[in-house]
């Protein structure tokens, strides 16, 4: 698989990251060399191997269903550039 200009633009748009031409070139080169390196794995036959989700052998830790009163709005909104009456205010998202 080769990353080209179109792919890089698509990934950038999905991530809402703006790239100028120079940056796009750099990312194309970086991602291609990463992919080339990873492609070596294709030499291994994995036809009958289940995909691996995690390499840890420990068991998923679980918590009890207890709610903690957070009363969080002040703390949560502290870093927000814009807010109104307890809400985050962001540029209009038009569907």
């Amino acid at each position, binding site marked *: 698989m080769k990353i080209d200009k179109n792919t890089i633009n698509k990934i950038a748009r999905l991530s809402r990251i703006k790239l100028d031409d120079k940056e796009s070139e750099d990312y194309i080169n970086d991602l291609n060399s990463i992919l080339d390196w990873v492609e070596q794995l294709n030499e291994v036959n994995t036809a009958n191997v289940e995909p691996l989700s995690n390499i840890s052998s420990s068991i998923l830790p679980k918590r009890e269903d207890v709610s903690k009163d957070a009363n969080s709005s002040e703390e949560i909104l502290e870093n927000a550039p814009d807010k109104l009456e307890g809400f985050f205010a*962001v540029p209009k998202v038009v569907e």
Partner: protein
Amino acid sequence: MNNLIKGEKHDWEMVIGLEIHAQVKSNSKLFSSSSTKFGSSPNSQVSLVDAAMPGMLPVINKYCVEQAVKTGVGLKAKINNYSVFDRKNYFYADLPQGYQISQYKYPIVGEGKVTIDFKDGTSKDIRIVRLHLEQDAGKSLHDQNPSKTYVDLNRSGVALMEIVSEPDIRTPEEAGMYISKIRSILMYLDTCDGNMQEGSLRADVNISVRKPGDEYGTRCEIKNLNSIKFIKQAINYEAKRQIEILESGGSIEQNTMLFNTSTGKTRPMRNKEEAHDYRYFPDPDLLPLEISEEEIGKIKLTIPDLPDELKNKFIETYRLSNYDASVLTAEKQTSDYFNETIDSDLELKNHAKIVVNWITSELFSLLNKNNLDLNNSPVSPKNLAQLIKLISTNEISGKIAKDVLEDMFSSGKTARQIVDEKGLQQVTDQDEIEKVIDEVIAENPKMVEQYFAGKDKLLGFFVGQAMKLTKGKANPKMLNDILKLKLIKKN
């Protein structure tokens, strides 16, 4: 049953599948300890995990996992001992993580089925593809300010069960029955509160149309419908839209649609170029979720009677009709109320049909009129049982019982109290009834003449007059019998 819709050129068949999002009824969120309470002030129930602050890690809520398994059992589905949480990546203002934690390739629950019952006594199975656990997103308010969107993250991270059906549904009515049945099962299991108004249960509808027998057509998905009425409306509109396009020679573009509840129309939400590319991958913050057969067994022990089983039980124990039993079991609160009523007096078990009628017609219509439901009924099951007992022992007539119920409803008194206070006991004294009838006959000589001349219908007139004199308290059967006897004698 004819499920086809007439087009200009030929008949069309709808093919419908539903993705139902059911909020797990839990105290805290799926991966954080924030409260799930509805209607709190904005952003007051948001932990650092929910706000996706750097370095925060998710820890799964054991109870939510158990609720998902319980629901899976209720849907007669396969429970998977091994499932995996994935990241579904997309960018949106009310999704601080930039991804939703969901399950993709390995969901917690696999294939199941749900049966829907039609009025004509037939039924149909709708197959379930899967149920998986995922996080809810926050809430965006778009209409408060012309240039801003306001975001509340209280809902962010709340546990949802997404229940996906096969495209086995063929009509808007079936879609409505299917979601009602799912809602009913969830409420019996107590794994979701089923409150569609508050968004605890909502659905995405996938719909396409085809000529009967053809392959499936291209489908569109209508997002986020939160009432059965809207689901039916949206399906009807969307099917018509697709048929019009196809009949005029066009083709359907696969699209995500929004339904406008005030116009009743659907419109595309995002065009194809913007189509989402979710780039699912296993969430490295979470280990796979493993559930042993032993744990599943323990959860199975907590499963109560579900609507289908309860319905059969009612039919068998109380010899109720299939229809009566379905009405009783459609909502858990109804079957609970019925059980409590019939259990409060041994004798009522022989009068189950009367109990059903009093709950589903008389009590329901009073509740409806007053905008109440069974959970906050002013008449308790025990008090209703007392009223029905008074009817079944002939102490009051059914007609008077209706007034008594209304009185119970508004005053909160028991049936006994009301009957005693107002002296409503049925008149079953032979002499007293005879006396009244004699009076009626004496007062209406012309009518009596006409009756003997062949106007049989006048019997009703005499009954009415006699009832009036006893203020409706005469035992109707005795009144009728004595009246007929007297009129024959007179002849």
